[in-house]
Every structure is written in C-alpha cells, then in structure tokens.
C-alpha cells in the first residue's frame, strides 16, 4: 500500500516544489496539500484543501484523509514577508495545532517531517565554526523568527516524546540559494551592489534548493528519525559569494548598522536583524550526520552560489521564462474528477 501524505503550505515555494516531486513517486498514493491560498505551481494529482491551520479543521482532515505522513514545510523563515504577529501565528500556533492533530488518539500518522532552519542556532561572535545538531545557542534568541522556530521545535520535541510510535524528523536547513527561490539573501545578491558590513567578511554556508527537496523526499522515503542539519559542504566568505555573482560589495557601517539599514528597508532592500547578524558573523553547521544517514548532496556551498549566479545571468538575458500559473478550481476539478478525462496509467 502506498503512502498518504499531507503537505502543509502548498502555495509556498517549498510546499509546491515538494508536492510536484511527490507526484512523480509511484509509492505515494495520495497527496493532500493544505494552505489558505491557492497553489502557484501546476499540480497533477495533489488534492488542494483551502484551510487554515486551526486545530479542529486539521483534526478532521487528518482523520478523513487517513494520512500516514505529515510533511510540515510551512514554517516561515523569511521575516520580511509578514508581520511578526502573522509569523507567530503560522510558525508557533500552526505547528502546535498540526502536531496536536497528528498526535490525537487514533491518529493514522506514522511519520512527521518538519522543515526548520539553522536560524535556530543564531549567529554571534561566540559561535563555533561548525554547529552540531545537539548544540544549542549561547544567547537566547532576540529576533521573532528565531524565537518562533525554537518554539515550534520545542513542540516537536514534546510530540516525539509523547508519540514514540511516530518517526519524527527535524530538518534544519541552512540558507537556500538556487535557480528559483527568492530569499533576502538572493534579493541582496541581485542588487547592483551587495550589502555587507564594513570590516566583516563572514563565512557563509548554503544549500541548493534541489538538495532541499531531495532531502525532504529522502527522509520521508527512508524514514530516518532525528535532527539533521542540511547544508552544503564548505563555507565561503561573503565577499567571495558576491564575486561569484560578479557583484561589488556595498559596506554598511559596523556600528549602528541597524540604523544605517533602515533607509534601505524603506527602499525595499530589506535586511532583517537575523540577516545583519549573519553578515557580521556568518554561520556554519555540521552536515555529516545526514550524510552518515545516507543522503548525498548534489551541491557544495559554493556550488549552490554558482547555481544561483548562473540562473540569474540567464534571467537577466531572457527574463523569467516560465509562464505564470493560475489555479482555476473548476479546471482542476474537471481534470481530477470528470469521467471524460482519460487517465493513461
């Protein structure tokens, strides 16, 4: 019997990407995608449910669809995209409700995968060069996104303790770069001059977007429990990242950096506090535990930067080549349900 999978945040980059990947997997029977907004990528057989992450709805969806796997990709790590309150609702309350539904009595769920971020380690001058999964940060989190991720993770720890029969996987992804994804980092690297902080040239680590999707599929397929850092091999200085993208640096003053970044925020060049910390001290995470579990990366950190640089060079010449996708409920329903549609298996 194939797997029945619930993907949260279907309209987000990761939800859409992951659902597309799962559709190609013959071992996956049912894919249910949850979001409040319509999916933004074309999907063949994923069932889209427009629902928010309130407990009662999630509980009914889990029971009704009898999903055995929950892929929780809907954790916001880019704090520039919404207010702190909305972010808290999604990351903390959403995760709380989802896990409560997955852990309810008689729940069919046997695996939960959560896509968190290496933001939980923070970025400070007291950090080791490489964080291992069992290490915790020295200082408590100051930014909202970091706090919310830590809270979401702590709910997952409780869930894992209360539900020993469920395979629980927590993945902490490093900064993602790649051909399509838009993050504060990718936006910064597309500016005419790349913001940096004077006197600092931090060592950065990246993971390529394809590796992110492959990793999520991998832990689902192989059912590997535990906490894993996901990041490409090696670290490279921010100046070199800019050089690979063929950009110059634009140094911000090392003191009162946040004030200096404020006018840029007004101009739409958003540098959230966690990004300013990163531009000062960088961050490195040890990726060897996931490799030992059998995962093979497709890109190193520098490789991910290069992949991004190549894609943006292409975009600069030919523009965004992929046509924009518009979800049409009736059309999707027609294709999925109408007896007139011939399904060639």
């Amino acid at each position, binding site marked *: 019997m194939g797997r029945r999978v619930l993907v949260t945040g279907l309209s987000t980059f990761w939800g859409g990407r992951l659902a597309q990947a799962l559709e190609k997997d013959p071992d996956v029977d049912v894919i249910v995608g949850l979001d409040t907004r319509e999916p933004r990528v074309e999907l063949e057989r994923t069932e889209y449910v427009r629902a928010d992450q309130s407990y009662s709805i999630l509980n009914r969806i889990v029971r009704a669809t009898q999903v055995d796997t929950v892929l929780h990709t809907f954790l916001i790590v880019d704090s520039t995209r919404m207010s702190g309150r909305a972010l808290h609702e999604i990351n903390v309350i959403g995760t709380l409700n989802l896990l409560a539904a997955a852990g309810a009595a008689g729940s069919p769920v046997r695996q939960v995968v959560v896509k968190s971020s290496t933001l939980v380690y923070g970025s400070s*001058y*007291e*950090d*080791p*060069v*490489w964080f*291992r999964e069992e*290490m915790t940060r020295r200082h408590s989190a100051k930014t909202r996104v970091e706090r919310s991720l830590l809270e979401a993770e702590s709910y997952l720890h409780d869930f894992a303790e209360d539900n020993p029969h469920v395979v629980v996987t927590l993945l902490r992804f490093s900064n993602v770069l790649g051909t399509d994804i838009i993050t504060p980092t990718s936006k910064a690297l597309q500016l005419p001059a790349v913001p940096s*902080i*004077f*006197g*600092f*040239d931090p*060592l950065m680590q990246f993971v390529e977007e394809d590796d992110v999707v492959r990793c999520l599929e991998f832990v689902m397929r*192989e059912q590997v429990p535990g906490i894993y850092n996901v990041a490409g*091999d*090696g*670290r*490279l*200085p921010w*100046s*070199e990242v800019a*050089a*690979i993208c063929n950009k110059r640096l634009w140094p911000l003053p*090392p003191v009162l950096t946040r004030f200096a970044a404020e006018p840029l925020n007004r101009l739409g060049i958003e540098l959230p506090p966690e990004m300013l910390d990163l531009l000062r*001290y960088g961050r*490195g995470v040890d990726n*060897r535990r996931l*490799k*030992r*579990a*059998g995962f*093979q*990366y*497709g*890109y*190193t950190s*520098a*490789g991910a*930067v*290069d992949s991004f640089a190549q894609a943006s060079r292409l975009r600069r010449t030919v523009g965004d080549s992929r046509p924009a996708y518009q979800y049409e409920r009736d059309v999707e329903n027609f294709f999925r349900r109408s007896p007139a549609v011939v399904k060639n298996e």
Partner: protein
Amino acid sequence: MASEERVTAEARGALVHLPRQADAEPLPDPRQSDVDEWGRSEHTRQLARRLYEPLYKSWFRVEWEGLEKVPTDGGALLVANHAGAIPSDAPVIMHGIEQELQRPVYGLADNIFRAAPVVGTLWARAGGVAAHPENAYRLLREQQQLVLVFPEGTKGPGKLYSERYQLRRFGRGGFVEIAMRAGVPVIPIAVMGAEESMPIVYKNNFLARTFGLPYVPLTANMLLLGPLGLIGYFPAKFKLRVLDPVHFDVPPDQERYSRSRIMDEAEAIRVRLQDNLYDMLRQRRSVWFG
C-alpha cells in the same frame, strides 16, 4: 579522515537497501578564494610571513631551543605564556613553526576578536581561530593540526610590567581537557622577550569597563613613541624553549574527564613553564641581546 571513512562504511552497511554508489565523485566546488573553513587564507598567511620575516629575524632575533620536539605530523596542542600589551608571542610562534617546520599553526584567541571589525577578519585570515572547545577539538582530532593556545587568556598580556614573567592562572584547565578528548599531546613553550617588547606601565579600569575590553593599557612604547607606540615594539631579544611534550594516557572522546586529573595536569604544566622561565631569566644577561 580515517574515522570519516569508517563511518560512511558503517552507514552503508546499516542501510542495506541503499544502492552502493561507486565512491561518489567530489562535487564541483567553484571556489574563487583560498579561505578555508576556519577563515584562514594561505595567501594572507604568505603575505603576513613576508612582512613579519624582518621583524622576526632582525628585530626580535628569535632563537628556538628544542624545536625538534614539535611533531612534523599529527595533532598537538601548543601551550605558551602570553605577554605584552599587544602580544607579540603569538605571531612569533606561528611564524617560527611555519617557517621552520612548514606546518600551519592555528592560533586560538578570545572570541571577542571576532566582534572587532577589520582586526577580526584579518586575524582569521592570518590563521586565528575563536577559542571554542568545539573548534579546538575539530582541528586537533579530526584534522590533526597544530593548535596554539595561551591558557592565561587575556590575564597574561593584561599584567603590569612589574608582574612580568609571573604566570597567571591557567584558566580552568580547559586546554588539558581538550587535549585529552582529542587524544593529542600538549607541548609547552616558554617564551622570553614578549614582556619587554611592549610593557604595560598603567591600566585604566574605567575605560576598560566602558568599552567592554579586557584591559586598556598605557605602554612604555606609547610614552616614548606616542601613537606609534601602538605598533612599535621594543627590540627585545626573543628566546623560546620547547619543553617535553605531555602525553595523557587516557582514552580520547570521553564524555567527561576527571576534574582533579585535569587540574593536576594543568598545574603541573604551569609549574614547569614557570620554572623554565625562571631558568631562562637566570641565564639572560641582557634584555636586548639575550
């Protein structure tokens, strides 16, 4: 390296259903600079060596004794006394060993360095690493490198000229614990000359507190040379003596090591360094000519 291979082999054996890949080709890694994971750049190191060579050869006229006790391969933790307002012992040891033994030395420094603009970056490019137990372990155990540490921390360079060659407390013996965990020997190095190259005559606690610095010194160099005294060292004669390596016959990678054993070993190393310093001072006829 060897342990890494063993682990992947284990993982392969454990997950039998995984197709056994023909040993994975290394991924393309389009790097443009030579900055390694520690922030060290061999280019910067070369430049630093070229600039430092005259200072090392002609100014400090560094003389080593027992350099053959520093191993030419395998990890080792070098431990030395620390002195001078802006300590010159770290670059002298790093430069000397790199020139003589052709081996890189990673110098551990207070992580406050990383918070300083420009200085922190330059320090990292020149082979400095933040003193975090995790960093030291990785360098020593997994990469079998030479690591230099000053167990006195900032208390060594922050002492007045009147207290010269009086070793401070050796922290909490953390360096012994790391060497035990990493399974490497500790090699003590007694340094004579750094104290006189930039002696502190006065310290201002108020300024230090205000700026969050370990100490704000007034040095004899500043009195004589003004602002130039910040970089102008006195030409004290440097003599370094490498002492016999200390091997701890304890298994590496333990969760914990006996606290009392650690303190005993740390204290023994401190006493030996102190005795050797006194011995070297007894033989020294002149601060400037040795």
